[in-house]
């Protein structure tokens, strides 16, 4: 981090808030079955971390995802969701029927939890990258006009 953040308050707030937000987002994602939360909220929390980094450090922040990569990763998230949905079709199940997933666990509930976790990861990636993309579009358009 060679670049200063622009002030004592911004510096301290960035160093405290952003790692906490990221870790809390991952917690909300993986613990979403037992507590309030899930893919959408986790994606929005992770996106808040990156948007804060962009707000504090500017467009060339170290902790950043550029526009093209954001669109690509959003597509990958949708692909993870679709792949998890279509995979049981090849093993004799219906769309999104988790119990037909080709993994061997002790109980059927564990396979169910694994399928839901894959779905949530896809939703998280898509929501996070879409929010970053909207932010990118807003800032880029207002910069080109002035």
């Amino acid at each position, binding site marked *: 981090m060679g670049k200063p953040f622009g002030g004592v308050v911004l510096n301290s707030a960035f160093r405290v808030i952003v790692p906490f937000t990221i870790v809390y987002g991952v917690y909300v994602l993986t613990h979403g079955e037992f507590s*309030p*939360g*899930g893919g959408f909220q986790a994606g929005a929390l992770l*996106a*808040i971390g990156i*948007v804060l980094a962009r707000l504090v450090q500017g467009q060339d922040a170290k902790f950043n995802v550029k526009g093209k990569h954001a669109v690509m990763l959003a597509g990958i998230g949708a692909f993870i969701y679709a792949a998890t949905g279509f995979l049981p079709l090849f093993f004799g199940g219906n769309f999104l029927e988790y119990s037909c997933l080709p993994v061997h666990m002790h109980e059927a509930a564990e396979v169910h939890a694994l399928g839901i976790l894959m779905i949530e990861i896809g939703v998280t990636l898509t929501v996070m990258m879409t*929010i970053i993309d909207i*932010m990118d579009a807003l800032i880029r358009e*207002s910069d080109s*006009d002035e």
Partner: protein
Amino acid sequence: MQILVIEAVLLLFLIATTIAIIMCRDLLATIVMFSVFSFCAVLAYLMMGAPDVAFTEAVISTISTIFMVAALRKISRWCKK
């Protein structure tokens, strides 16, 4: 009984914030009042026993405040009469 009083106060806050949003001429102040409205809505959702909706509202109000401030750079801050 106390729950009912707290809910009534929260709903009054919601109505007052909405009237302030409508009346205000400063768009930046409108955005700040909108985030106040979202916070009151979060508390109201919590009182009504929907923590999942409250969590979503809290996260989305943060994001939408950032978006609206970013969009405010394109237009002027004061709305015309």
